[in-house]
């Protein structure tokens, strides 16, 4: 997995690409949460470069979303590829986590 991020004001945009499955899901969560700073109010995860996500990957996204929600922060994901979008749609996660078509729309 590769990560890059961009912070402007209280908004953090994280770009994650590659594959998330059972073998790296907990590393994915650690890396993601390691990027958060106390001042971040809005966290947007840009998944345009994500090729594959397994159910273990969905689970860590849910954990991240719930943690941020508890702190009163907003979390959304955006720019899903077609196959990753299918995973979100079929599992119903698009009803649990905010999904936007682009980073701009998520802001």
């Amino acid at each position, binding site marked *: 997995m590769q990560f890059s991020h961009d912070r402007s004001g209280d908004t953090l945009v994280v770009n994650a690409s590659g594959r998330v*499955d*059972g*073998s790296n899901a907990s590393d994915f969560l650690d890396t993601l949460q390691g990027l958060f700073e106390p001042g971040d109010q809005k966290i947007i995860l840009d998944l345009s470069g994500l090729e594959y996500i*397994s*159910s*273990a990957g*969905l*689970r860590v996204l*849910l*954990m991240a979303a*719930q943690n941020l929600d508890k702190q009163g922060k907003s979390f959304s994901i955006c720019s899903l590829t077609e*196959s990753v979008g299918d995973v979100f749609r*079929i*599992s*119903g*996660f698009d*009803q*649990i986590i905010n999904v936007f078509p682009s980073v701009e729309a998520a802001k």
Partner: protein
Amino acid sequence: MTQPYRILVVDDEPDLEPLILQRMRRQIRAKEYEFVFAGNGVEALEKLNADPTIDMVLSDINMPKMDGLTLLQQLPGVDPNLRAVIISAYGDMDNIRTAMNRGAFDFVTKPIDFDDLKITVSRTLEHLSEWREALASRDQLVALQNELGIASQLQQSILPKQPLSTEAFEVSANMEPARNVGGDFYDYFKLDNEIALVVADVSDKGIPASMFMMSSRTALKGSAIGVRDPQAVLTEVNNQLHQDNPTFMFVTLVYALFNPDTGSLTYSIAGHDPPLLVDAGGTVTELPMTKGVALGIAPDVVYTQETVTLAPGDTVILFTDGVTEAMNPDNQQFEMKRLSEVFEGSPPVSASEANTAVFERVREFAGDAPQSDDITCLVLRRS
């Protein structure tokens, strides 16, 4: 020679004792099982306290002095590893819900169907033996690799072993576990005059995931007995699993109820790929999706259901994403398209043949590429 399993039967009906001794005589003679009887919860606790060799409890709910639900609550104080199977009536969701919350492992319905009881008892005991092995290994501080091995045995122990086919229909199911990942399970059981079918995928691996798998299976079977409609069953299971789920595990599944007399199949989907229907002419279609979300992650989700009628010769394929996401050496996925092609123009003549065909095609496609997820397929064919 291993010791027979000791089973405590708790019921105030005096007829049950001779009936069990008669219907289980083969297992008793073969020294597989030994039965102990109690007429109510108080008597049951006395026997359990006096006899630590009892392995499982089979208990009715309504009894004088102490009922089965109160007894369930007391069991962990006697031995936390006792497994309890509850005898309940159809449609008794309130009691079943309480029993699940109090740790019941499985359910059988009244009036007792002894074939079903034998299956349930043997599966409970198999699970118990895997569970004890897991505990023993944990005590020895085993490596992770071994933990996954145990998880995989626990996973195997909850799968149904006995076939359930009649002249009217055939069910065939198989699960090929991946080496290190594993969360799939399937189940099928008789529910009155109908057949319940489940294919499921739990979000994680290892022993915690197999515990969650166990809870999912118990919640599903209990709810299936407690409420009729598949959509109501999933609503119930979702709330049950969500109640106590600090680690955000979840399970996606298809739950279907088939009536062999009319051919009607009613199903509800929780965050899972919809089943495929292959008609007798070899036309393949995806069954309509229903509304719902993976089970266990959010409270009060609305689930819906659909009903289709299977004509003689129609086949329904339930599967997990281990089939459609199987990869070949070029990193391509098997996908729904290739699964459909297995049957397009060649309708299966039997459920077992259809099942074998799916696994053969996936294996052929994957070649030398490593299997990264469990592969599960359950086929129902109306004769």
